[in-house]
């Protein structure tokens, strides 16, 4: 399969590979996929007291497109509020990376990973989905 230069760039120089402490209340962790399906993504966000994403990291077991999709997602997440981050759609990733049709599921997985990480963060911090403000559990810590 011939990949776009952007996919190859993200594969060769992945952005933000790594892990945060998943027990940190400022950190939201999403793990999606399954080894038997050939891809597992772990995506983590770290937020400030206002609920803005200040850092993001990923680790991915999967094909080149899956690695590129998650690498791109971490770039896009930084600087967004969690609710802004929920606006990221898999189709945006498909467009940016020029993913071939058989690899669209990689972008879906990346979107799922973003949502799972944000859900984890919100749950930890008792954020009501409708509310924009965050009552951080870390404030009392």
């Amino acid at each position: 399969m011939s990949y776009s230069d952007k996919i190859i760039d993200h594969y060769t120089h992945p952005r933000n590979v790594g892990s945060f402490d998943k027990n940190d209340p400022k950190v939201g962790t999403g793990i999606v996929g399954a080894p038997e399906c050939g891809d597992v993504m772990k995506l983590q966000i770290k937020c400030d007291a206002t609920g803005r994403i200040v850092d993001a990291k990923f680790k991915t077991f999967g094909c080149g497109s899956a690695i590129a999709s998650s690498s791109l997602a971490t770039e896009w997440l930084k600087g967004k509020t969690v609710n802004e981050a929920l606006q990221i759609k898999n189709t945006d990733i498909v467009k940016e990376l020029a993913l071939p049709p058989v690899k669209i599921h990689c972008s879906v997985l990346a979107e799922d990973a973003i949502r799972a990480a944000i859900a984890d963060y919100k749950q930890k911090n008792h954020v009501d989905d409708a509310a924009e403000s965050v009552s951080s559990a870390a404030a009392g810590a």
Partner: protein
Amino acid sequence: MRLPIYMDNNATTPVDPRVLEAMLPYLQGRFGNAASRSHRFGWEAEEAVEQAREQVASVINASSKEIVWTSGATESNNIAIKGVAAMYRDQGNHIITQVTEHKAVIDPCKHLEQSGCQVTFLPVDKYGRVSVEQVREAMTDKTILVSLMHGNNEIGTLQPIREIGALCKERGVLFHTDASQTFGKVPIDVEAMGIDLLSCSGHKCYGPKGIGALYVRRKRPRVRCEPVLHGGGHERGMRSGTLNVPGIVGMGKAAELCRELMPTESKKVAALRDRLKDGLFGQLDEIFLNGHPTDRTPNNLNVSFLYVEGESLMMGFDDVAVSSGSACTSASLEPSYVLKALGVGDDLAHSSIRFSLGRFTTEEEVDYAVERVVTAVRRLREMSPLYEMAQEGIDLSKVQWAAH
């Protein structure tokens, strides 16, 4: 050393320059139709075809009269299986094969199932082998054909075809073997092995693509096949169609070279394969050999690299051409059915790489490949959430994955 390096000889082999040289006159002046009996052009084409028939026959201890030219092993398999099923319909309708056959055997068998044949697809053990006992137990009084490949294309495992051939002889059942991966590479003797039909291909043994052969036994018993292609009655009526003379000459020359070189070449290639294996296993932990540890084709190494997905791994050493059992490399999005049949988990099937060496592989290339693969595996494991979880002591098989 020239890059990229080719280590996918189970997919196809390069044409040996000596083969090309033999073919060229038949692509230039000697263009005659081998079926033309009325002039020199036809005679010299026919003569070349008959010489090639001898060359192919002598690789497997057959007579040249028993060789039928085809377009490749897929067609040979189709003629053997469909042709026998149609010709021996009155004697029975049961065929025995195995789950790890190439699609060119599985699909003709499935096709026959739709028209009233019974097919037994034998399961294989963890190395990809069937036993003589399994075949014996599967036989019924309706069994007309056993079709089991000699060497597997993905994992290299060799089947005990000599024993199975003997069983078939004892029971009066025809025995077909797909020898695409072993013809010219592993000794084959159709007499000693009790083989009645054998498929082989030109482009797997340093000949050209688009040419293959089917061995059809003529004595004890005389095997007959209904043709798949009808027409001018070429090849004793078993395969109509004007003969591909340059291809045939090429396959003949390729067969002759294989026969001459096999004793030294198979040892040399196996030594390089073992060097590759030792290099990888010496430097990486949590990697697994797929297929039989010793009874395998000399050029094949199939390895699963735990925690790393095959397609992304291949991207990591893109100047070494190999293939993978990962779903991401196939159109079906399913991992290799061969690996799954061995009981290798889907996760390990996704992590598999097939290296297949050949006549032109060098030690320098093997060492380069080892270094590239080791570097890529280490880099991707650092990026792998599964590797991280395993390092933390998490049992991955007990994790509730959000399957998609």
